[in-house]
């Protein structure tokens, strides 16, 4: 039978593999839900590892494009890996679908007709958080973030919308710094109303622990983006880090979102893998359905690039986040929610939606993108 070949580049080695594993699980679940087929075509899925290194990621991408001759390349957790690999895919005339990374150039001047995102642009989530802070009457803020591009995007994002005063900012060494005692002491001394942080992956775990050990919970409430998620929460629970309970995060998706696709995804993911899916998983799951919608729209004619592009552009598929649309830069225009860390009925730590912060929010870089 004819087949559609999809390459999925994610992180399968190093500590970053937690994220990659979540994506891989979700992609496999998606294929299962599709019954192994997109339209009449069999799905031939190839996973590749980026090792959190741009060069490795690019090499893996090159192999998918040149050797395996895939039709779609999806995945990419890390901005720098995506930026390094982007040209290989697009120059070869294939579709590139980011299931996580959303660095600003890709939304702006480096946007491309064959690029689509099923996640977000880096600035959006923290912008939502800035709005939340305004709404909650937070007047002064202390900010901590790793000193790298995505970290700076996050800080820029929250500063875009937050109207109060920023009392201090710490960009910590990245990668490698996991001891935040000095910064926490500074934050405490600043006397700000709230603490905004962005610490993805294991830095998040380390941060939350130290936040708790320093006894800051009662002094300075915590507002985070991409720090507390479905991957870290079970670990926090095992480590008894009560400090994270009730903390606020913003996101475009939540396991409790009420739509059929999401319900099936969350329920089956939990049954199959034993814990709540994280947003990494949700986006990866979506990326497969986006591809499926394209393949089906052209009746399996994978040479019909224009047809597939038009189909994807319409975002006409069941997304776990509900309906959304694409901007000119092929970044989602979508809702952002405020979520809170809670215990579910079985006592497992998860999040629930408190309210909608933004409706149909578009990233600020779309105007730099020459596409229409």
């Amino acid at each position, binding site marked *: 039978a004819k087949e559609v070949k999809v390459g999925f580049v994610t992180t399968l080695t190093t500590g970053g593999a937690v994220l990659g594993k979540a994506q891989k699980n979700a992609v496999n679940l998606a294929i299962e839900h599709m019954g192994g087929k997109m339209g009449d075509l069999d799905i031939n899925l190839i996973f590749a590892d980026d090792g959190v290194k741009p060069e490795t990621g*690019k090499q893996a991408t090159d192999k998918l494009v040149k050797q395996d001759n895939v039709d779609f390349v999806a995945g990419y957790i890390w901005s720098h890996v995506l930026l390094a690999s982007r040209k290989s895919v697009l120059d070869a005339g294939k579709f590139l679908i980011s299931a996580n990374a959303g660095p600003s150039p890709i939304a702006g001047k480096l946007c491309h007709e064959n690029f689509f995102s099923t996640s977000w642009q880096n600035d959006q989530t923290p912008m939502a958080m800035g709005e939340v802070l305004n709404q909650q009457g937070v007047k002064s803020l202390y900010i901590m973030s790793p000193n790298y591009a995505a970290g700076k995007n996050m800080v820029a994002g929250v500063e875009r919308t937050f109207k109060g005063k920023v009392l201090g900012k710490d960009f910590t060494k*990245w990668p490698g710094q996991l001891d935040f005692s000095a910064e926490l002491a500074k934050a405490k001394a600043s006397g700000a109303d709230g603490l905004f942080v962005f610490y993805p992956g294991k830095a998040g775990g380390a941060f939350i622990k130290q936040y708790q050990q320093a006894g800051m919970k009662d002094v300075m409430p915590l507002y985070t983006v991409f720090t507390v998620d479905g991957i870290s929460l079970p670990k926090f629970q095992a480590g008894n880090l009560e400090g994270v309970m009730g903390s606020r995060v913003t996101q475009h998706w939540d396991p409790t979102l009420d739509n059929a696709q999401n319900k099936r995804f969350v329920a089956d993911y939990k049954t199959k893998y034993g814990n709540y899916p994280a947003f990494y998983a949700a986006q990866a799951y979506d990326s497969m359905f986006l591809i499926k919608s394209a393949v089906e729209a052209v009746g399996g004619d994978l040479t019909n690039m224009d047809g597939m592009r038009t189909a994807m552009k319409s975002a006409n598929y069941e997304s776990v986040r509900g309906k959304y649309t694409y901007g000119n830069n092929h970044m989602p225009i979508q809702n952002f929610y405020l979520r809170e860390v809670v215990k579910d009925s079985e006592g497992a730590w998860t999040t629930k939606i408190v309210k909608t912060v933004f409706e149909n929010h578009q990233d600020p870089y779309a105007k730099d993108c020459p596409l229409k």
Partner: protein
Amino acid sequence: MNRKQTVTLAVMVALAVMPPLFVWTGNAFYLDLATRLVILAIAAVSLNLLLGYGGMASFGHAAFIGIGAYAVGIPAYHNTYGEFELIASYNGFFQVFLAVAITALFALITGVICLRTKGVYFIMITMAFAQMVFYLFVSLDVYGGDDGLVIDTRSEFPLINLDNPLHLYFLSFASLTAVMLIVRTITRSQFGKVLQGAMGNEERMIALGYNTFAYKLTAYVISGAMCGYAGALLGNFTTFISPEMMGWTRSGELMFMVILGGAGSTIGPIVGSGLFVLVEELFSSYTIYWHLPFGIMLILVVLLFRGGLLGLISGNSKSGGH
């Protein structure tokens, strides 16, 4: 012809004929792999001049590669997006000149300080400078910070077109051959002998009347500049540069390539980088736990063959370094 020379010839011939075959048989990816291999081999060969013949185990050579690559990327970036007219250019000769000149200068300045130290202290101080460069580029937001810099347009040369993978490959291959010959000539020359003498017993060389510092510094600058050149090629190959390329792990890998192949021999570093690149590719396509067999392989090579793989081939167990 002894075994070592046979191996050298075989390796070089294979590198000359295999890649075009890849293209004709529709295995373009393997041409990429070969290009990567050859470019890394240039860096390894240049490191070997220091490490294998001068006893200077530089743990910061990735910085030279990185600087070389940025010397291609930054002029190209400004030529595309404006500002900094002075260096804005796609001209390959200009970019390569920049790469070589800046790395040579960087080597000269840091070398004066680094070469005051020896052995492991040298390893660490070279790494320190490389880390400084690393963090410098991480925080240079203009050039993408840690997200890196995309090179939209490759270096432009008359007659050759680097967008053509074969052209790029053969430029790299010719460069590798040239660099090999340079290193080979240098190491057999009087200069090279003094360098090797200084590696073996510096006190004695000074007592004989050699200003060993000057010789070591010269070698350091030559090696750094050649590595910068490799960086310029690498930038053209990946069309993307990020500080990640100059992290200490990359410097470590370069060092391993040299030791794995056999420090202090002409072909050793090439064998080493070849093995590194190919085994990595081969193992990683089978399992995500490929680091395990890879690590075991490294351990076995060290335990079983003195002086790297070449020690096995040439049957002697002369080992370089201190």
